[in-house]
């Protein structure tokens, strides 16, 4: 059995049709899950999802066809995606709960993408993503509350602060590996959490309240959004903001993955010594992974802080880091699409299966173990780079 006997490449029309239908179908499924009220409805939809996945596994040419279709007509794909993302709130209407879920899911998608650089691309364990997330949130909140700095200005400042933190965590990573490194990152996470909890100026265990809503061109994000005569709830403002961040994160992830940096990360994941023998400064790339992760996580943290207008140290614990890690592992290591799916799944499902909310952590733990035992590469395993060629 040699390489796959590649089926006829999708023609332009079928590619367009597939791309549009696939994305609309996905959006519809997401909408259905979000709207579902009863547990059994959610489980049925989940079953549908599972069946779809089973089909993809059984007939790999299906997923190949899908990806090739999407890639064949990039303009159509991007346009459809834009329409869906921009139009979703209109379909959702005034259901603020759904909007809220989407915002949180998007923020976690960004966090998962951030962690993916380390965990997925470079196989560096990082249990401190929650800490970077928290630093971003706290720095921006403190700037806004104490110095009246506008949201837009706090974004880059918080990101820089967190990146500095990322560099600092990165330093031990240069000399330590695997389990020791994991311990260092856990230690950092705990230290940050404890410090946030104990300092007065961070509000202590009660955290910070009353973070002002951002405003853009005079329009405050706390006000409903009026577009073409439609009135969207104020959450829609944050929805679009989060969506913009997700796009930014995807572009960043894509560019890094397809560059010599992404290759260097993959190389050091596979074999550090061989990577060094190709001239890769492994220590630098490890630190870089931490820094990039922290940078993106801080953006997410800032948006989160201004969205909920109240943050406390308990929002940024070790368990948050573990949750993000689960999303990457379950979704697919080093696979941008997979990681986003993982984030959405693991944010929305626990909310929907509310009856089991008390069992959420137990569920997470069991899911991680099962995945690692049965399907360690995640739902959507990493794809080899194509460079425009065919398999």
């Amino acid at each position, binding site marked *: 059995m040699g390489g796959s006997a590649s089926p006829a490449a999708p023609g332009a029309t079928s590619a367009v049709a597939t791309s549009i239908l696939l994305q609309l179908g996905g959006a519809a499924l997401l909408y259905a899950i979000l709207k579902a009220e009863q547990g059994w409805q959610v489980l049925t939809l989940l079953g549908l999802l599972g069946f779809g996945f089973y089909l993809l596994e059984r007939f790999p040419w299906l997923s190949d066809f899908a990806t090739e279709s999407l890639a064949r007509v990039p303009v159509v794909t991007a346009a459809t995606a834009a329409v869906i993302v921009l139009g979703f709130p209109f379909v959702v209407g005034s259901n603020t709960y759904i909007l809220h879920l989407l915002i949180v899911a998007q923020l976690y998608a960004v966090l998962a993408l951030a962690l993916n650089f380390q965990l997925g691309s470079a196989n560096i364990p990082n249990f401190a993503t929650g800490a970077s997330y928290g630093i971003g949130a706290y720095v921006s909140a403190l700037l806004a509350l104490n110095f009246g700095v506008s949201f837009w200005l706090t974004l880059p400042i918080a990101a820089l602060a967190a990146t500095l933190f990322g560099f600092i965590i990165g330093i031990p990573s240069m000399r330590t590996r695997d389990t020791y490194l994991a311990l260092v990152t856990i230690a950092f996470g705990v230290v940050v959490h*404890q410090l946030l909890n104990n300092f007065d100026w961070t509000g202590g265990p009660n955290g910070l309240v009353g973070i002002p809503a951002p405003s853009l061109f005079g329009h405050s994000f706390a006000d409903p959004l009026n577009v073409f005569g439609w009135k969207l709830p104020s959450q829609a403002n944050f929805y679009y903001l989060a969506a913009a961040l997700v796009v930014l994160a995807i572009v960043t992830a894509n560019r890094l993955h397809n560059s010599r940096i992404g290759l260097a990360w993959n190389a050091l994941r596979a074999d550090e010594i061989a990577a060094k023998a190709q001239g890769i400064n492994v220590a630098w790339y490890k630190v870089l992974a931490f820094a990039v992760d922290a940078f993106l996580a801080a953006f997410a943290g800032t948006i989160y802080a201004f969205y909920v207008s109240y943050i406390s140290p308990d929002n940024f614990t070790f*368990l948050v880091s573990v949750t993000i890690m689960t999303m990457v592992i379950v979704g697919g290591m080093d696979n941008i699409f997979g990681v986003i799916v993982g984030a959405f799944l693991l944010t929305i499902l626990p909310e929907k299966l509310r009856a089991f909310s008390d069992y959420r952590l137990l569920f997470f733990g*069991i899911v991680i173990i099962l995945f690692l035992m049965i399907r360690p590469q995640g739902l959507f395993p990493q794809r080899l780079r194509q460079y425009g060629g065919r398999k």
Partner: protein
Amino acid sequence: MTELLVQQSVNWITLGSIYALLAIGFSLIFGVLNVIHFSHGDVAMTAPFIALAAAQALATVFGAAAPIWLVLAVLGAVLCVGLIGVALDKAIIRRFRDAPAMMALVATVALGIVIRELIRHLYPQGSNPHAFPRLVSGVAFEITGVPVSWFALTVVGLTVLLVALLFVFLHKTPLGLRIRAASEDRIVARMMGISDGRVFRATFLVASAIGAIAGLLFASYAGVTRFDFGVMAGLLGFSAAVIGGLGSMPGAIVGGLIIAGIEVLAQTFVPEGASYRLVFVFMLVIVVLIFRPAGLLGRTIMEKV
């Protein structure tokens, strides 16, 4: 001043012994399996819960609440946890032995979460802290006016005894020899006919049992037990093992004493130090790992290039 010194020294050695016992469990498992059993702390902290449940059950069955039940319950818990450790290895941890280190790590972290949640759900009122009795009470003697409790003496004595027994086991018995051989080089050990299964079962049994004792002493020392004590116990025990050098028994003891030392110092000299103690401990861990990545007494494994 001397009283403070003596008091804190007693605390230090007591706490240090407990941490050392925890660390020994981590080091033992790592040495043989080359897997960090992140959930060892959680496994260890199931012991107080099992003991409490068993003691209550015995008291209900036999009508009277006598100290003998507690003793039996404690012994039962130790054995039970030892077996739990073996079962977990067989069911889950074994599969990650040859997997990349990262996977085993994340899996055992997840396992820890599962164990904690199971305690929380299975034990009545699991989310609340539960009082745990001091197993040995009373004051033994005084040094410069500072009372030294029987409990402190028991902890230290028990630790010394266990360490000695462990040493004899590892160095003088055939099974212990096999464990040390497998710890040096698993593949060669297997080629020499040393049965993987037996070695791992024995290692997990011993490590988990010692961990259980540490857990019981920890709960005793604190006076309470909570389902998430395993997190702290695990982190502190693991840190102690890492500082001392994973795989090294003397390292585990040294690490345990160092960590306890920092905690006691922080508590004594830093205002509101208690809440910061973790910060100090972990900062030390980070520093040690930067300068001696394999721990103080650990052996650096040279990779063949």
